[in-house]
């Protein structure tokens, strides 16, 4: 997949032809191994739950995805704040990369929530606090990606994104509280309510394994996505030197007209 020579990381390394490096390969492989383990434990080895029955297996998907999503949006918020302070490209690209991954995992959280709902309540959607909160927050961050997609110079786009990154993250606790009061009053079996602390044995292992593996996966994705964003900036920027030269060239061409005081340059 990559042609990077893997000898010791001397600086004469051949230029990478993709966003992977030894670090990401290690991360990638361990994520895959982890995922395999997760399937074995989560689906086959761990017993169905006394109270939840088989639906606990969806929990092994739901908890990791929502945790990764919230972590991603936290990184977006930190990146946004740091960008507004330091104004360096690194923080902007980090915030944007994390936001995209966050939206993907939020989408998966809703998918798992709906499937869990179908089994437990017989319907894909119920205005259950967690599901509702996730949907609202997903829309807020889709707004982030929508603004990010608007063509603008890097500084403008970064400032707009940073503002939304902060405006959206501050809304998370407020939305949680509002939705909880709104739908959480009459206790119904909410998906979060079911992470019973007393799960142990292989169930607990599967749950924590899932979390750990998804965090590894998130790190791998973030590194790659950051490098993609970085490359995109360099690709867009690569023309600057050439553009300046071309611009200056334009000057020499028009020098004839300037000296001749021609009036026709209106």
């Amino acid at each position, binding site marked *: 997949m990559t042609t990077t020579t893997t000898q010791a990381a001397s600086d004469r390394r051949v230029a990478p032809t993709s966003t992977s490096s030894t670090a990401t390969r290690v991360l990638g492989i361990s994520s895959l191994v982890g995922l395999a383990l997760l399937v074995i434990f989560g689906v086959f080895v761990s017993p169905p739950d006394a109270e939840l029955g088989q639906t606990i297996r969806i929990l092994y998907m739901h908890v990791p995805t929502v945790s990764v999503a919230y972590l991603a949006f936290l990184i977006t918020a930190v990146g946004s704040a740091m960008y507004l302070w330091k104004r360096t490209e690194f923080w902007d690209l980090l915030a944007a990369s994390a936001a995209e991954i966050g939206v993907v995992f939020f989408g998966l959280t809703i998918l798992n929530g709906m499937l869990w709902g179908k089994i437990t309540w017989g319907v894909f959607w119920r205005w259950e606090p967690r599901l509702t909160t996730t949907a609202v927050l997903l829309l807020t961050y889709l707004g982030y990606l929508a603004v990010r997609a608007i063509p603008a110079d890097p500084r403008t786009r970064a*400032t707009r994104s940073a503002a939304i990154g902060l*405006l959206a993250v501050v809304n998370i606790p407020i939305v949680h*509280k509002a939705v909880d009061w709104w739908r959480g009053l009459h206790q119904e079996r909410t998906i979060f309510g079911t992470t019973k602390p007393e799960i142990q044995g292989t169930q607990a292992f599967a749950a924590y394994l899932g979390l750990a593996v998804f965090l590894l996966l998130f790190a791998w994705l973030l590194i790659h996505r950051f490098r993609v964003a970085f490359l995109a900036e360099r690709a867009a920027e690569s023309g600057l030197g050439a553009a300046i030269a071309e611009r200056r060239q334009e000057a020499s061409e028009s020098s004839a007209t300037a000296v001749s005081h021609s009036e026709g340059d209106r």
Partner: protein
Amino acid sequence: MRTEGVRGVVADAALVAGKDLRLERRSKVGLSQVLPFALLVILLFAFALDPDRRVLGAATPGLYWMVVLFSAVLAVQRSFGVEGEDDVLDALRLSGLSAPGIFLGKVAALMVQLLALEFVLAIAVAVFYGTEISGILLLAGVTTTATVGIAAAGGTYGGLVARIRGRDTLLPLLLLPLLAPVLISATRGTEVALGRDAGPGWPWVGLLGIFGAVYLTLGALLFRPLLEDA
């Protein structure tokens, strides 16, 4: 020459708010377009939901606040559309006005217009939907705090999209999801005020107050970079 510090910001805000309200008095866009739009939607809801049966009555608080949110989007678009024309934004950056001052001035002007609209709308809802108004104190608390939050979040996003070409369609996409908790809290608070829900009403006002305070502060802090680079 210019007063600096907090007094400077308040003075700037007063100047900008005065200008916005005078603009509204001159152009009457709020009065002749946004308000009729709100009343129209109230009627449309009645057509959509059969006015005789209980449904319309039960949904009145929610419908009311939905209309307020849509009207707020129009008011914000008008307020920042004015700044977008004729490169006025550049003149604002060149003027001595402080960014938080401009922001708070815009928000204040938005609030005045929204509160006026909400008052007229309340009368319309009372008449058309036959709702008897009760729990005035709670209602006032809910309405005021909700309006602070709507105007603050609206002002922030208004500043963010001021220079974007497709801003008219982008603003609702950004603003309405953010205002979801305001819609929930205002509607529930109103239901308690109108005696339709036994639950406590004032916690909703508290949450609306937190939302308003958070977005007033965040907006004021973000407005400088937004005015500068957005």
